[in-house]
């Protein structure tokens, strides 16, 4: 039948269109994947090339013929990469823990407790969310310098603790917990403090995990404040460490060793991300932009 034939043609062309569209989509997505991955590939590759063979390649090679671990050894011995990592880990853990405590208490006060002036304080809080860090860094720099806290952990940590946004995020989450639970706990004679840690914190765990992840990423990558406040390499974090390595590093421009350092610095967060992939991604999409 004629119409049947025509219908078959319509069907066929629709199918061909879909196949072509799908193929183009996959090719372009793979291309972007390649662009994203290539720098990672290059840094790992270069980190296994020996100093001599790297500098001998006028045309860069895409493979490594004699892989060497020497660069990783130099990264930890010639420069104090181990110290930078330790500093950063310490900075990250302390900042995150203190931030979490401060944030939890403040969020609880806003979400659950009644007090005079609550609304006005909260509005002021929200207004602070619009203030860019760049504006307050200047005075903080002067403050910390005057307090003689340059090149010290308190100097690094204190200004990095407060975050209006995280308080806001957690407060919203706390508020979503039904009032009934609170009244039930009150009737049972539970104290506010106990209620906060036995009921609210466990219920709000996903949000708290989100906040922790965001803060850890932020701390691990923070550069500006540590750069301003430290000039003693004993207190460098990884970002400043890598900058130091670049400028005065291995006595000469030793790119393979530099790449080994870059791999070591990048690895912890990448591993963390791959393990908690879903949590990290959903946390970031809830939590806003980088930095």
């Amino acid at each position: 039948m004629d119409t049947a034939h025509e219908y078959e043609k319509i069907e066929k062309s629709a199918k061909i269109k879909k196949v072509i569209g799908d193929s183009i989509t996959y090719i372009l997505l793979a291309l972007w994947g390649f662009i994203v991955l290539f720098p990672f590939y290059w840094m790992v590759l270069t980190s296994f090339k020996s100093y001599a063979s790297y500098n001998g390649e006028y045309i860069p090679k895409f493979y490594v013929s004699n892989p060497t671990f020497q660069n990783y050894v130099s990264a930890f011995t010639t420069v104090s990469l181990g110290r930078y990592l330790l500093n950063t880990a310490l900075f990250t853990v302390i900042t995150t823990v203190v931030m979490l405590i401060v944030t939890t208490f403040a969020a609880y006060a806003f979400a659950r407790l009644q007090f005079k002036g609550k609304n006005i304080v909260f509005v002021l809080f929200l207004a602070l969310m619009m203030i860019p860090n760049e504006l307050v860094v200047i005075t903080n720099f002067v403050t910390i310098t005057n307090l003689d806290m340059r090149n010290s952990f308190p100097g690094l940590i204190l200004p990095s603790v407060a975050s209006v946004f995280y308080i806001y995020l957690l407060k919203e989450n706390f508020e979503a917990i039904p009032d009934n639970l609170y009244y039930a706990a009150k009737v049972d004679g539970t104290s506010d403090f106990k209620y906060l840690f036995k009921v609210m914190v466990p219920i709000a765990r996903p949000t708290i995990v989100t906040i922790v992840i965001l803060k850890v990423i932020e701390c691990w990558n923070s550069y500006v404040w540590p750069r301003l406040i430290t000039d003693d390499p004993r207190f460098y974090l990884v970002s400043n460490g890598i900058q130091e390595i670049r400028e005065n590093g291995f006595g000469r421009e030793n790119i393979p060793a530099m790449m080994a350092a870059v791999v070591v610095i990048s690895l912890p967060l990448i591993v963390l991300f791959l393990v908690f992939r879903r949590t990290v991604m959903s946390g970031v999409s809830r939590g806003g932009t980088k930095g």
Partner: protein
Amino acid sequence: MESTVKSNLKAWLYLLPALLFLGAFMVYPLIDVFIYSFEEGYNSASQTSFGTGIYNYSYVLHDPYFLQALKNTLILVAITVPVSTILSLLISLGLNRISKLKELFQTIYFLPYVTNTLAVGLVFMILFKKTAYTDGMINFLITAFGGKSVDFIEGPYWAKMMVLCIYTVWIVMPFKVLVLTSSLASVNPIYYSAARVDGTSNTRIFFRITLPMISPMIFYLVITGFIGAFKAYSDAVALFGTNLNVAEMNTIVGYVYDMLYGDSGGYPSYASAAAIILFSIVLTITVINLLVRNRGVVKG
């Protein structure tokens, strides 16, 4: 009566740590930065100033380094915000079309978000850099396709700006792709079914259904993109080192920090004035964005 006093006290006690931290490191600095910016000739060593006025602003606005930084920042914003927004939209549309390998792609695309900007910037640097030993990876590709090699790191201005833009886009893409993909996925598929039944072409579906429905998210990304690009700094340091003025690659934020500290530092007043100028620019653009957006919504 006593119990209200007590509960008030308790609430403030819970708030106290946050108030202390925010007061000391956000509210006080915020006020102080304005004071600094109007104190003329403030010297951080002697802690004295000549008087108050707008000299700091005038100095900054006439400083060639600031003008260079302003120019760089504006070019960076003008290029990276549209490029990254459109590119991320295309990628998200692609991701939303497929089901196989989707999670793998999403995971890969997100990787730059969790990397250290300074560290990975070095990789970009060596990819683009021309040294005595090698022209570098990118130049190898350029010459392979018959082009002429360029030093992207210490060469001509446009080449340096290009690398900076490429690296910035590479860094900001993960967040945009993530947000847009979930925003696209949250469009109720029933609208697409309805459109298909009516024989709507793909282009028309995109412009008449998809785009309007995700437009709030796109506006959000454009605004945060503007703010983020105006505050660019560490990407430039990663590529060109800390001496950005010499490299002609400084940004406004970089100028602020250079005024504060480092070889050219010690001038918190100039730094404050520059920071406030930056903040005013960002605020103005955000407000304009919001106005345009509201007009767009009313017009429907």
